[in-house]
């Protein structure tokens, strides 16, 4: 905004007195009183001051060009309303470079500010337009800068406390009792250890932040973040009716969406918050939340972007402003995504007349196009990044010329190689699922049509070839779940396929185990890749709600039934603090560490057995004691029982042998026909 000085005000007032006009302004007579009034009082509707705007950066002209200037100004500014008064202060024969315009109403003045501020008249003159009343507001800011009051330090304790568990147990959240209760458990192979359990902690569901630091809960008024050893409330964000959230990968920002709060002047559908300060950084409109998250973050949290028709808007943090102050115009853009390893965006546009469809890789922030790939006869494309950004797979559905059917190709972009070469894998059947090995160079595909569904494993080799390692046919699977550490994976037939599970080791493509969790709706790997949880959520199936814990090899460890179990989410781990060298050293000495852990495991196993045995012994003693008491009373009542049944003893089955009747029953066992030779 233009710099504010008393000079502006005094000029204006002086000018008004000189100017003869029948507007309300002329009611102000005395200079000093006027000054005081204006500087002291808050502007009111009746004063008419709200209808005045100040325009800065107006060309300074002499009297010969003044008429022309006035015409130009009039042309531009009468678009917003009726100009009732205009004043062009001058000095030494030239206009000063700022002017005052009065409109017929305050709303018109507002329109002028909104639309003309920033108007580029010519190369040297860009108008700055302000409401006169804003000067008043800004001039009333005290000259003395008051330091903000010191907030008491909120100690949340060690926010990474769970990582320090001596037995390296990971945590997971469980929502059950149809959402009434939420609990946090520590994963012990024997049985879950309750860390925290609260009623009505969340109103719908929960989310962990990407590095596991915060647990987010949903409420009618907004979301809350919890963390630290005791899960205290760290921060609260007010967003009425919030339904969806997304975290930036660096955990600095959280994005909330509510379908309720959106007005034209104040975009409130999507809000981006700074987690540490709790401040609202920026609000955005949102037409539809169909593809959440609407804003996609770069891996380092430096940028976030969204797609609107024909436009890709990229914003930078922490300013929250558009990168280079403008969006990218990309006609027909259908989809985009960030590389999870670098600040590269991949996007694709469909065919346009004679221009083929194409996939583009663009470097940010330079906007340099690293790679463009033309595709022909495209029906649809899907972008699949490998988790480290080493590869991009574009699944292309095409209708080749002269045919009716749709075929699928996988275009594999090798991101780490010079000029990003692209290899193509042609698939003969329709694709059900695709997934990259998280930190490797393999990918798995489920293809075909029920009941003939096949699982194929491919390896992207360094020599430019993509090799089909193995194909398993007739699989009961509709989803692929790789271990976050790679190599192992689970092929699952969820929901309608009744929970069929196959545990695969992709180092030699063998099936380690085939099992079933009837009606399983979800599969979740723990962050270390040691355990898998399969679960039947009450949200999809009303009975048998439980979560089962398996080892990565498919050995079932626990069955945990929970009344109306809804959702289990593992708490993510922050990236390791070890360097690659340190990890190498540990792997070298693994045998040494294994010995120590095995011993520890054996001790805890025998302790568990001992605990169980002790518990059982105690229960049996209690039970025996109770039975002895009951039996004593029973014996004492024997005479009463005899009396009740007319002297007939019925305490034992053989109490009354004399009364027994012997009955012989014949029943048919077998029939055998033996031919007796020819007689």
């Amino acid at each position: 905004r233009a710099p504010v000085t008393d000079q502006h005000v005094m000029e204006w007032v002086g000018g008004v007195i000189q100017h003869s006009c029948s507007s309300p302004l002329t009611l102000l007579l005395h200079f000093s009183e006027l000054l005081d009034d204006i500087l002291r009082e808050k502007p009111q509707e009746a004063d008419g001051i709200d209808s005045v705007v100040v325009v800065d950066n107006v060309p300074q002209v002499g009297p010969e060009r003044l008429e022309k200037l006035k015409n130009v100004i009039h042309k531009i500014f009468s678009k917003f309303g009726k100009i009732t008064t205009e004043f062009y202060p001058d000095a030494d024969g030239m206009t000063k470079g700022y002017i005052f315009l009065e409109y017929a109403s305050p709303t018109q003045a507002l329109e002028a500010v909104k639309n003309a501020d920033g108007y580029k008249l010519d190369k040297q003159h860009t108008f700055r337009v302000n409401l006169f009343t804003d000067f008043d507001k800004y001039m009333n800011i005290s000259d003395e800068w008051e330091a903000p009051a010191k907030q008491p330090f909120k100690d949340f304790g060690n926010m990474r406390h769970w990582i320090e568990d001596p037995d390296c147990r990971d945590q997971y959240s469980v929502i059950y009792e149809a959402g009434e209760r939420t609990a946090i458990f520590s994963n012990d192979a024997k049985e879950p250890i309750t860390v925290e359990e609260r009623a009505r902690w969340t109103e719908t569901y929960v989310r962990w932040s990407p590095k596991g630091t915060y647990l987010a809960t949903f409420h009618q008024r907004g979301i809350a973040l919890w963390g630290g050893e005791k899960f205290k409330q760290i921060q609260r964000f007010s967003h009425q009716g919030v339904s969806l959230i997304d975290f930036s990968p660096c955990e600095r920002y959280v994005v909330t969406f509510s379908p309720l709060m959106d007005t034209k002047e104040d975009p409130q559908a999507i809000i981006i918050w700074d987690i540490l300060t709790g401040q609202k950084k920026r609000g955005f409109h949102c037409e539809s939340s169909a593809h959440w998250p609407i804003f996609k973050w770069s891996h380092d949290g430096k940028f976030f972007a969204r797609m609107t028709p024909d436009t890709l808007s990229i914003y930078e943090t922490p300013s929250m402003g558009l990168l280079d102050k403008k969006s990218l115009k990309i006609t027909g853009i259908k989809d985009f995504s960030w590389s999870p390893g670098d600040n590269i965006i991949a996007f694709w546009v469909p065919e346009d007349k004679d221009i083929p469809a194409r996939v583009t890789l663009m470097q940010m922030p330079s906007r340099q196009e690293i790679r463009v790939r033309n595709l022909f006869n495209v029906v649809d494309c899907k972008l699949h990044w490998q988790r480290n950004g080493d590869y991009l797979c574009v699944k292309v559905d095409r209708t080749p010329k002269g045919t009716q059917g749709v075929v699928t190709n996988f275009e594999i972009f090798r991101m780490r190689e010079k000029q990003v070469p692209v290899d193509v894998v042609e698939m003969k059947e329709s694709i059900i699922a695709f997934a990259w090995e998280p930190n490797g160079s393999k990918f798995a595909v489920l293809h075909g049509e029920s009941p003939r569904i096949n699982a194929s494993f491919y390896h992207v080799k360094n020599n430019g070839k993509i090799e089909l390692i193995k194909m398993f046919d007739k699989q009961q699977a509709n989803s692929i779940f790789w271990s976050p550490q790679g190599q192992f994976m689970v092929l699952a037939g969820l929901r309608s396929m009744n929970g069929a599970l196959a545990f695969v080791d992709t180092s030699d493509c063998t099936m380690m185990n085939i099992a079933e969790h009837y009606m399983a709706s979800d599969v979740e790997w723990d962050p270390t890749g040691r355990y898998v949880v399969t679960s039947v959520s009450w949200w999809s199936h009303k009975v048998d709600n439980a979560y089962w814990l398996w080892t990565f090899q498919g050995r079932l460890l626990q069955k945990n039934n929970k009344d109306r179990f809804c959702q289990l989410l593992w708490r993510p781990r922050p990236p390791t603090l070890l360097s690659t060298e340190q990890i190498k050293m540990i792997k070298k000495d693994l045998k040494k560490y294994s010995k120590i852990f095995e011993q520890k495991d054996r001790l805890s196993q025998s302790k568990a057995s001992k605990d169980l045995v002790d518990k059982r012994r105690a229960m049996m003693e209690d039970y025996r004691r109770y039975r002895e008491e009951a039996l004593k009373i029973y014996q004492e009542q024997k005479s009463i029982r005899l009396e009740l049944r007319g002297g007939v003893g019925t305490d034992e089955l053989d109490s009354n042998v004399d009364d027994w009747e012997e009955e012989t029953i014949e029943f048919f066992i077998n029939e055998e026909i033996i031919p007796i030779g020819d007689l």
Partner: protein
Amino acid sequence: MFGHERSITQIKYNREGDLLFSVAKDTVTNVWYSVNGERLGTYNGHTGAVWCVDCDWDTKNVLTGSADNSCRLWDCETEDNQPYLTVPCSDHKITSAVWGPLGEFVIAGHENGEINQFSAKSGEILKKAKEHTKQINDIQTSVDLTMFISASKDNTAKLFDSTSLDHIKTFKTERPVNSAAISPIMDHVVMGGGQEAMEVTTTSTRIGKFEARFFHAAYEEEFGRVKGHFGPINCVAFHPDGKSYSSGGEDGYVRIHYFDPQYFDFELEA
């Protein structure tokens, strides 16, 4: 054994265990030899589903309760019958009932999970227990009547002392429990159950997979399951000698199982 057109609602052994009575929603009451499953006879006369059956201590009379709002007392041998009692409905309806050890009170389970002791003389409530959170489906006593087990829709069965109504043990499953029984000779209980017909929304591929579950009475731990029914199990009962048990199911079948020797030797490590 197949002898009913519709789902079995209850089965009962007589005191000596040589006979097994079964009743079902098809209004029919059957009696079988428990040794070989041969049907002895049928009692016809009810006009509604028969929900419960019991015979007296010397197997002279059989008592049945039915949805036609009547109780019928039958002479065991002659299949003769006279309507005995018509019972009107009321709130918190009683879903199951057994006699106390000396006939001085009746223990009843209600639709809302309550268990009450009613004096047999005055009808007033002597003791109350609210341990279950949903409907009581079945109550069965131990052979000496000192304790009883209640089976509930809340997925558990609980063991109580008959006289004090003290809650002694709980056995947890993940399905509604329709029936439970106490072994006469071992520290075991057997439970049968399954989801309600209304709640089965998908075609189950688990044909024949409804199981009877055996729990250790003192440790509250499950140690065995028996498959075989094609639908939920509605009733279970131990033979009075404890060497076999029976189950009646929604599929209309009554199954009699004799335990193999390992069952009697089995022990959980303690």
